């Protein structure tokens, strides 16, 4: 039987072939696909194209063959290359700096990330093998049987020059560093904290400009400590020297940044996140609200700070229809954008804990011995857009209806709340918010989410929602209903005004990506 299958395959097929049809690009013979089958290739705010990495064959006991396809922003195929990589290596990130491509392959066996750099024809021109990986990154990916799900956001391009990444050194805890390497993979600089004592750090790079790299660092003295400090750190792009390190606190509050947005025109950066009262256990209580701070970019001086309280400020501006039940909800901020006119839009999502009948039943059946899931579930509710004027005053709250999605929490997380819980849900991709992108001219943004009944897959409607500004600069939304019936789907970032819809059709073994224009009126 197998023989015949192969025989026909040889005569009629040419392996995995992609075809562009209109604004679609289709990959054939795709055995399975997760949420990373097709990924956006970006440079700062701009989507440059898409990359797909498909395993083609095993070439030896230790190596496998990948087929890499690159499409431009309009889904026109530009590159195809077959690459031999270690069997336990998976693509976790990709970047383009106008001179080269960099693919990050995480090797779970060797516990390394290989940053492989390719020229514009996809010939390898350099490689940096990094051994300083955070254990949680390895842990997140090690249980993953697929080869396309995990994404690490620790790689950013430096125009024409190279790339920056975050690394972790195991020495009295884990200390984060920001590093830059050039197009040949040579490490140019690596800078971390000077603190010699025990410290557990996590870092995220937010902005890479012509002069500096801005990242946020969260640190605590022990792995289980609730005392956490957050910093905004700027490094000189050429030397790596630390220009400033700002702790995000004021006299009464501690702030936990989610997002940093840089305005090159004004040389200011704006930080947003959630804030707590000083001394509150951030893992167990709901945050007080969200904060916005603007800093002068050169020296990192605070210009203005604004605290927007969930109960005092947001509750007042909630649409009347949505006021009921609002106070029981937690809200997390996904992304913040500053538009050219100085207005700020923060995109958030509501969620709350509830008791899961299924979780309780399985706990009872396992006699409390545990079985992976707790009896607590998270309900993901509506998407929110907070409109903030240039004086950093909250002027409006917009709420966009969604179906409630339910996520069973892993055991041990039943008591967790607030910042840690939101981060866990974000890491596991449990929120419906997919991405928020700002147009290169900063005149508009698109916040994109998916909306479907996860408990009744294949039966209900699959919807994609887009929030942005209409012609009158008012926050508005658009809803797409998928008329196709894919086995799975997700959305990828696309050029302004468009959404890239990725659909996997299991029966046809087809992975398709298409760009659709949104109708925000």
């Amino acid at each position, binding site marked *: 039987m*197998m*023989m015949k299958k*192969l*025989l026909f*395959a*040889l*005569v009629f097929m*040419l*392996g995995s072939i992609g075809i562009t049809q*209109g*604004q*679609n690009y289709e990959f054939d013979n795709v055995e399975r696909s997760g949420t990373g089958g097709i990924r956006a*290739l970006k*440079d700062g705010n*701009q989507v*440059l*194209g898409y990359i797909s990495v498909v395993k*083609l*064959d*095993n*070439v*030896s*006991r230790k190596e496998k*063959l990948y087929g890499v396809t*690159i499409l*431009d*922003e*309009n*889904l*026109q*195929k*530009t*590159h*195809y*290359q077959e690459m031999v990589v270690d069997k336990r290596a998976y693509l976790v990130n990709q970047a*383009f700096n*106008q001179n080269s491509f960099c693919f990050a392959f995480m090797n779970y066996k060797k516990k390394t990330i290989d940053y492989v750099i390719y*020229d*514009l*024809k*996809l010939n390898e021109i350099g490689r940096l093998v990094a051994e300083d990986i955070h254990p949680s990154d390895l842990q997140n990916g090690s249980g993953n049987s697929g080869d396309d799900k995990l994404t690490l956001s620790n790689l950013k391009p430096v125009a024409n020059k190279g790339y920056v990444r975050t690394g972790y050194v195991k020495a009295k805890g884990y200390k984060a560093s920001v590093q830059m390497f050039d197009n040949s993979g040579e490490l140019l600089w690596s800078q971390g904290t000077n603190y010699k004592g025990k410290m557990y750090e996590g870092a995220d790079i937010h902005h890479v400009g012509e002069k500096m790299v801005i990242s946020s660092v969260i640190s605590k003295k022990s792995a289980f400590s609730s005392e956490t400090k957050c910093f905004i750190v700027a490094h000189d792009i050429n030397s790596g020297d630390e220009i400033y390190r700002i702790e995000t606190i004021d006299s009464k509050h501690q702030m936990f940044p989610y997002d940093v947005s840089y305005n090159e025109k004004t040389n200011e950066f704006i930080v947003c996140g959630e804030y707590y009262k000083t001394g509150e256990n951030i893992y167990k209580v709901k945050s007080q609200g969200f904060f916005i701070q603007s800093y002068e970019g050169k020296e990192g001086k605070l210009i203005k700070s604004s605290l927007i309280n969930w109960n005092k400020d947001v509750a007042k501006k909630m649409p009347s229809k949505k006021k009921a039940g609002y106070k029981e909800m937690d809200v997390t901020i996904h992304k913040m954008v500053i538009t050219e006119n100085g207005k700020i839009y923060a995109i958030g999502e509501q969620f709350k804990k509830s008791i899961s009948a299924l979780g309780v039943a399985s706990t009872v059946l396992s006699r409390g011995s545990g079985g992976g899931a707790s009896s607590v579930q998270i309900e993901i509710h509506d998407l929110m857009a907070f409109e903030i004027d240039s004086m950093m005053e909250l002027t409006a709250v917009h709420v966009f209806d969604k179906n409630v999605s339910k996520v069973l929490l892993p055991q041990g997380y039943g008591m967790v709340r607030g910042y840690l819980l939101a981060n866990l849900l974000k890491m596991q991709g449990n929120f419906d918010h997919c991405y928020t992108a700002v147009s290169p001219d900063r005149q508009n943004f698109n916040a994109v989410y998916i909306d479907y009944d996860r408990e009744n897959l294949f039966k209900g409607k699959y919807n994609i929602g887009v929030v942005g500004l209409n*012609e009158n600069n008012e926050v508005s939304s658009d809803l*797409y*209903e998928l*008329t196709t019936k894919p086995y799975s789907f997700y959305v990828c970032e696309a050029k302004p005004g468009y959404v890239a819809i990725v659909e996997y059709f299991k029966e046809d073994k087809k992975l398709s990506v*298409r*760009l*659709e*224009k*949104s*109708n925000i*009126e």
Partner: protein
Amino acid sequence: MRSLFSFCTLILLWSCCFGQSAPKNYEPIRYTPIALETLESLRLAFEEHLATYSFETKKENKLATEFVTKLHESLSAQNERGSLSGDDPLSAYLQKIVDQMVSANSLKKDYFKVFLSVDDIPNAANYGEGVIVFNLGLLSRLNTEGEIAFILAHEMAHDIKDHVFNGIHKKVIALESKEYKKRVKEIEDLEYNQRAAALALQRTYLSEFNEHGRGNELEADSLGLVLMQKAGYFVEDALTAIDLLDHSDDMPVFQLDYPSYFNFRNFAFNEKWLEKKSTINLGGNLEQYATPDSLKTHPSCKARDASLRIIGNAADYQFDSSKQVSYYALRETAFAERISYYRSTGQFSLMLYYSIWHSQISPDNIFYTNSIGNALYGIYTAQYAHKFSMAVPFPNQKMEPEYAQLLRFFHKLNLTNLEQLYHAYVSERISPAGSDAYSDLLHALSDAIEMNQDPEGRQEIIANYEAKYGDSPYTTYIKNQFPEPKTKRKK
């Protein structure tokens, strides 16, 4: 340059021969699928034909039967999709040319059957047993009856030489050979590099089959030339047909004056919509993946041209204008059908581009004026339903620049712009309501869009249209656009 030349020649031919005689109105053909009895008798004929070949083993016989079944299934599938027709003015015309060549060459009467495939791919195919499928996409790209005759004669030659069944026989013998099976088994037993070994084997066999196939093509060209020449056609027709095949992907070149098509009292054209944005160059490496000649099924058009020049005697060529006249009316039908095909498949940017092109050639032909309106409506509704990607592709460097510009223009328009453009076009360019079925359709669609909140009002518009024009293709079209709302059952 070549396509520009072709275009200029075409304009000349059009204006000389029938510029004034183009139909002012046109109703799309309603294709009738091939009768199931005809398909069944073809299946039996295919089986009987296969029985004339001897196979040594049962496995060979089984595999050959599978190939023939697939051949028949592909015809049935096209027929089920409604894209195959044997009873329409275009296939009747093709059949007439075939019958002339049958008679001139003393071939068996009523053996060859030509079906039209309503498909834009410029292709024609012989299925054996006298079955020739001629795609609308090829027919509408050819310029003269002689060119059509060459394509038909080429397919007839394939049939006369039994290339289809011979090819199946050869494939079966090769695939069931001990050597091939041994190599497949070896690949299956490989723990590593299975794909590379399978591709190498595939290349070897494809290359062998294709070499044989390319020989068949040259043979069909040469015999086809004889068949057509005996029926009074000329080698030059064959040469221009080959040249057209070589450029079948080219689109017509013309200047599109945007304000004259897209500027109205209620819709002001904005030059900004034509601005080209700069994009970051990602580089590329696809040139190294071009299909090698050994894997191509057909010889290059250059080789075919050279071969035909040797075989044919081009010296006594005389253009028979009397033969072309009957063809030109049908050529316009083919063009109009191609435009209708783009509408039925939702390729509205192509519908628009070709309608504008034709409207420049025949400005007094309201079919093309109306089709421009219909395409604008299609683009608007595609965007409304978030299916813009199906209607208007992104421009790319391989496209004809003018077409790429048109696509760029539509990508800049938002839903409101598209709606305004459609209404403005209908009110200023389409004949007043009551003029003809197509114009009335566009007016009715315009009214129906405005009744967004009034489904009953929409149904009334449709009912009025149906009352006036009965069961026409346009009635079906408007009904499909606004299906009757489902009424909830009372408990």
